[in-house]
């Protein structure tokens, strides 16, 4: 008889719900063709919705962190909050995907989306190096296929291949780093690594650096970002929306957890390393975005710069930093999904990639999407009346509190540069007319897509709502951050 650890099924329920949704979506392949799309989509969104509900319940029931499954997973409010964000993001992405003009592969698409969500939900609660790697590979493999799922488009295939190679390299680096850390401490669990007496400082630091680099690939922090623009541009827009919001959420939360729990002794080194990553991401992301004309590419660079802001919060290595990161993730995810949703809508209307030119006059012709995109751009730039401003404020306060005033200055300069491209989008939306440039189609009505409209509306509500309702979100974030031993 093998000794099996007791299983806390509730703690595992969010990934399980998502896997169930994925299974149901796959089973829709048995149905007649006209039902497949509807059934698989509903299965996926139901999976995300149930996972969100379970995560919220878990959040309330897990005020003291518990270690599960022999120290391989943890049940705490940090994981639950991240799972809730992931669940809502995933549901919104399903709504965005609904109107995608794809002839086949509906069942596979939604099943992979839900499975990727399950992998992320698992990843954020990983508590040892093995489960961390397992979770990372789990959702990465799904994403490799999702990126390439529009197999009739060459760019989609190219993006998939690029992501596979670079992502595989990133995973390998993470795995090698994990091996070095295990070699130095003979421990796999994060807590145990933190309290172990390392046999070799050099191995431990090399391992730490490699783990950080491996996660930085997923966060798309510069200088590990080079896949981001190509993949974000080539992937189907709904998948890009999912990657920009969900992958970042999962990877940043995991990074926060492993750095704070497993490497408290080395914090003077990794805070500087993360701060440097943040600074490079801010510089590279913002300067790169300035040069882009393709909107998806521009948003890809913008997501690199947001990774920089969020890394700033991690580098503060304080409870306040954790709170700032978790707060930031909420408006950021909403703005990111929303912006890509508007891009998807424009893409479907024009049947061509969306460049700045093709936005000309859109603000007046499609007022709803115009105002929404305007809101998201201002939010990303950190203007008031969006949660973006508080995200920046909290991140800056945390960094300033941690004595990193130079990083705050870099963040301020980066924000100034970012206005160049965010406001440029607004300029194209409202201050150029499509007729004058003879580019975009004017008049007529776009394809009806109520599901996408709902996703955009929800994103606007979260983006603006997180400006007015700050304290309740911050309370939740603070509970979640207190699960870590700062």
């Amino acid at each position: 008889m093998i000794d099996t650890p007791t299983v806390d099924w509730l703690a595992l329920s969010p990934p399980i719900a998502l896997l169930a949704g994925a299974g149901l979506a796959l089973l829709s392949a048995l149905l007649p063709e006209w039902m497949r799309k509807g059934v698989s989509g509903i299965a996926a969104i139901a999976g995300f919705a149930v996972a969100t509900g379970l995560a919220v319940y878990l959040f309330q029931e897990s005020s003291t962190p518990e270690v599960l499954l022999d120290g391989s997973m943890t049940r705490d409010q940090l994981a639950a909050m991240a799972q809730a964000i992931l669940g809502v993001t995933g549901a919104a992405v399903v709504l965005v995907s609904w109107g995608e003009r794809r002839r086949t592969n509906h069942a596979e698409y939604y099943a992979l989306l839900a499975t990727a969500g399950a992998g992320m939900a698992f990843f954020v609660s990983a508590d040892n190096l093995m489960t961390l790697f397992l979770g990372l590979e789990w959702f990465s493999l799904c994403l490799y296929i999702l990126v390439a799922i529009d197999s009739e488009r060459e760019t989609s295939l190219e993006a998939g291949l690029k992501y596979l190679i670079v992502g595989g390299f990133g995973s390998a680096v993470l795995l090698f780093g994990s091996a070095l850390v295990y070699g130095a401490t003979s421990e796999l669990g994060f807590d145990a690594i933190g309290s172990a007496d390392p046999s070799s400082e050099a191995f431990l630091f090399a391992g730490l650096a490699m783990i950080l680099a491996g996660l930085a690939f997923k966060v798309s922090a510069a200088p590990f970002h080079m896949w981001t623009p190509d993949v974000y541009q080539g992937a189907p827009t709904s998948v890009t929306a999912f990657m920009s919001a969900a992958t970042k959420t999962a990877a940043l939360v995991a990074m926060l957890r492993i750095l704070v729990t497993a490497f408290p002794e080395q914090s003077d080194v990794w805070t500087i390393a993360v701060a440097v990553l943040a600074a490079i991401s801010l510089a590279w992301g913002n300067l790169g975005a300035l040069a882009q004309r393709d909107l998806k590419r521009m948003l890809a660079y913008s997501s690199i710069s947001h990774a920089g802001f969020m890394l700033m919060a991690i580098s503060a290595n304080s409870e306040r930093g954790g709170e700032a990161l978790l707060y930031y993730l909420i408006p950021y995810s909403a703005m990111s999904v929303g912006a890509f949703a508007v891009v998807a809508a424009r893409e479907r209307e024009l049947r061509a990639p969306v460049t700045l030119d093709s936005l000309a006059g859109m603000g007046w012709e499609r007022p709803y999407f115009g105002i929404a995109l305007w809101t998201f751009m201002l939010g990303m730039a950190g203007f008031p009346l969006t949660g973006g401003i508080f995200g920046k404020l909290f991140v800056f306060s945390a960094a300033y509190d941690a004595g990193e005033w130079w990083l705050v200055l870099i963040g301020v300069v980066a924000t100034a540069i970012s206005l160049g491209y965010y406001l440029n989008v607004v300029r194209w939306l409202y201050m150029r007319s499509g007729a004058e440039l003879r580019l975009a189609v004017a008049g007529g009505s776009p394809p009806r897509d109520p599901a996408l409209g709902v996703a955009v509306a929800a994103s606007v509500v979260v983006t603006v709502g997180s400006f007015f309702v700050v304290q309740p979100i911050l309370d939740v974030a603070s509970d979640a951050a207190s699960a870590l031993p700062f």
Partner: protein
Amino acid sequence: MLTTALILLPIAGALVVAILPLPRETTAGLAFLVALMEVGLWIVAASQYDFDEGGLQLDASRQWVESLGISYSVGFYGYSLWLAGAAVVVFAAAIGYALWVGRDRSRAYYALMLFLTGAVIATFAAQDLLLFYVSFEAMLIPLYVLVGVWGGERRQAATVTFVIYTMAGSLLMLASVVAFGVTQGTFSLTESGTSDNVWIFLGFAIAFAVKAPLFPFHGWLPLTYRQAPIEVAAVLSAVVSKTAIYGFLRIGIPKFPDPADDLSGLILVLASAGLVYGSVLAFRSPDLRGVIAYSSMAQMGLITLGVFAFDDLGVDGAILQSVAHGLISASMFLLVGMVERRCGTGELDELGGMARGRPTLATVVLLGGMIALAVPGSATFAGEFLIMAGVYGQGWGYSVVVALGVVLAAMYILRLISAVLHEKPGRAVREEALDLRLGELGLVIPLLLVLLGLSVWPALVSESSFTTHDASPYASLGESPP
């Protein structure tokens, strides 16, 4: 409550105007009605404010982000109530002017104007540093679109320069807001203490200097004032610039007494330079808008001299001058707009001789010009005199500069009057160009009447702005921070 209503009324109006699919005239009329209601509401607020007692009144406070000490706190001091009063009057006139000339895409246009009104009032009422920053930034969003969509030929270039300048300033201020708030543990302006950090002060000072604009941060001014729709230029010069003065008086000086004192010499020199330089540029400017735009820069230099005089007379004069300049520059901009509409250009070379056959236009322009050049007996003269007297304590040279500014103002305003009204009829002035119409008079005359009222009784503003000691921005000067 009343203060919150003053902030929310125009914002609610903006939402209604944006959402209701009304025809163009109805939309404009509704927006104008909201702007007039705002003026009415301000009168109610002013009647409830006890000017004898002074200090912070009509205040309201609600927690916003407790853990960082951020709250929604609003209220008025005597001086900020006057600044807000000038703002609501100018906004009503500007929206009325837009109603008169008719703006296309009216729902968006009036929604943005009303939103801007709300943001400006919120800036003047903010008693929390973050709320101040938020409202200060929020002004930029409508301004950006108003200039960029409804502006002149080179509006795109204008918005880019405007945004780069203002945001560079604002973001430095954000860094300062974070640094000050985190160090103090609260963002409340009423609860926080003082700081002696020069860098944090500079972050604020530069943001305000760009917004005002003060020499040498005025690079955005000529293009923006020329390209903006004329009523938006009026609002920019009359109202938005005054938020910088409020910033200096509510944050810059009281929260950073030592740095403000240390740097006051530099600021006074720059303000003097701006006063003279702006006046000279106004005198040399080839077009109407240029004259008013640069004169506005000169006047902001003058007001800054009053603020940094560190003298009660000087700051009383600064507030009186802020209110008077707000009203007069709005009137002048609107008059310029009316002339431009008749002639299709604002180039001084092409104008002239408009007085003949247009008696009302001539009278109103002359009256406005007389107040603008601070003829003795006018409210602007009273303001300039107080500033001159106040700044004397900092050095007699500054008073000489102020006097020089008065002389230069006479020169550029008289040049403007003669170039428009007198001389031979210009090429652009057609015989059939009309005199001022009743609707136009209805917008300018109330502004000028208020100014005449203030000319008769300038003490109404200057003696009720800072009544008690603790309302004075200089109360914390000389105290060392804890």
